[in-house]
């Protein structure tokens, strides 16, 4: 038996098919991954993401610490704003990608569950020399409510301490109250909110969402939605051997002059070299793209890092690490056959619409 979120029984009650996910018993789907995917693109769905790790950083030097720890710069945002960033090792490799919520007094970050131990150890190690405390909050639940109808369905269900403010949140901002963090962020390419709340309140809130017509959505659809949205998955699209420059995350690196963040020197060197880049692929024939398929281009070989059948497009899509400058037609090797694909700039889908551009 793996770890269970406060919603384990609710998943079983909703018909969830439970699988092991990095040591957690999580729902892969509740009947049809495709239907759940479409529910998020067209209406509203809720994901239990309580397996993710919530960590608070507080102390006199919390800002100095975060500006050292992270490749993006928390000084560029104000309290109430969220920031997407990589946490790098000295070689510029991505230890994890995370969301930072900047508070009046410190920071809250959400990191991946598969990297929890490594992340916490690294964050603790880096506190040396800073007046700062890093503390995990395993008692919290986390839900992502996503889709064009998500915020409307939620409006009457939030605690009064956050309801008013939550209704006016702009993208990538958040508010807090009564032990809840409500952020207009997500991992699907649709509008919606991510909510961090006390674990004991999660089952009633989950039920209220279902009663309001929000569909339960499993981790299977979470993966197809994020891939259509062109969003990276840690462990697939980047890891500790890959820099943000090779993972389509260059935009998250803040080169603020004089800021000595971990990995900066290595990234500056990498920036001057020829290095591969992460691009999108759209398969032009029938079939399904998967991770680790060989990509043959006129400038050398590459490899898919994530791939799936896109329910919205009705064809296969992938992220692939390719030699810089590759555009147009390439071939992907699937079971010893070479199938034609086009190089595109992700995202593939945003707000229910096809948006990718040919490169």
């Amino acid at each position: 038996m793996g770890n269970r979120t406060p919603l384990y029984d609710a998943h079983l009650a909703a018909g969830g098919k439970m699988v092991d996910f990095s040591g957690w018993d999580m729902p892969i789907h509740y009947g049809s991954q495709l239907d759940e995917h479409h529910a998020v693109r067209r209406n509203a769905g809720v994901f239990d993401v309580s397996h993710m790790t919530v960590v608070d950083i507080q102390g006199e030097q919390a800002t100095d610490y975060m500006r050292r720890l992270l490749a993006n710069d928390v000084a560029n945002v104000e309290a109430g704003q969220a920031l997407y960033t990589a946490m790098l090792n000295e070689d510029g490799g991505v230890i994890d990608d995370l969301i930072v919520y900047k508070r009046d007094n410190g920071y809250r970050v959400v990191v991946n569950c598969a990297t929890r131990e490594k992340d916490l150890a690294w964050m603790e190690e880096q506190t040396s020399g800073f007046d700062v405390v890093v503390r995990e909050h395993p008692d919290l639940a986390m839900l992502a409510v996503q889709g064009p109808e998500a915020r409307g369905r939620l409006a009457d269900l939030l605690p009064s301490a956050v309801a008013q403010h939550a209704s006016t949140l702009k993208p990538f901002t958040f508010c807090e109250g009564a032990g809840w963090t409500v952020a207009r962020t997500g991992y699907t390419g649709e509008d919606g909110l991510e909510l961090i709340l006390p674990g004991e309140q999660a089952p009633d809130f989950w039920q209220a969402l279902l009663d309001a017509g929000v569909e339960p959505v499993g981790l299977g659809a979470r993966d197809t939605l994020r891939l259509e949205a062109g969003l990276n998955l840690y462990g697939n699209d980047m890891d500790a051997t890959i820099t943000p420059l090779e993972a389509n995350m260059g935009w998250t690196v803040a080169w603020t002059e004089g800021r000595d963040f971990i990995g900066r020197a290595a990234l500056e060197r990498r920036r001057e070299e020829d290095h591969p880049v992460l691009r999108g692929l759209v398969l032009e024939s029938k079939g399904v793209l998967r991770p680790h398929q060989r990509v043959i281009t006129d400038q050398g070989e590459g490899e898919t890092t994530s791939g799936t059948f896109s329910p919205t497009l009705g064809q296969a899509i992938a992220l692939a690490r390719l030699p810089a400058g590759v555009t147009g037609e390439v071939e992907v090797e699937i079971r010893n056959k070479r199938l034609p694909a086009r190089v595109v700039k992700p995202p593939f889908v945003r707000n229910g619409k096809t948006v990718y551009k040919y490169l």
Partner: protein
Amino acid sequence: MSQIPEELRYATSHEWVRMEDDGNVYVGISDHAQDSLGDLVFVEPPEVGDEISTGDECGVVESVKAASDIYAPMSGEVIAVNENLEDSPELVNQDPYGDGWIYQLKPANKAEWDELLSADDYATTLEDDED
């Protein structure tokens, strides 16, 4: 609980086989197999004319989440494939023992039919898998 029709035979690799009066057989994947895979989005059947042997990988079914090989439950020549699956792979989910058939085989050795699992025996292997 998945459907396991009495009149069919099964392979441990979750294919079903239906014997027709003319001695040819239809092959598909079981209700249990389609349910485990989830929504199918692509089926790659063998080609008509292929000579296949028992246990050969002779095609692929892919769901949103994963690709899974299909194995030949009997030896013989592929004489037809279900062309409707090219545009409607979901037929395998909706009707695994009917409209979701994958290919038709002319068996090389009909004695192999008797070596396949009966519905009861297949049900037992599924129960064992769950233990």
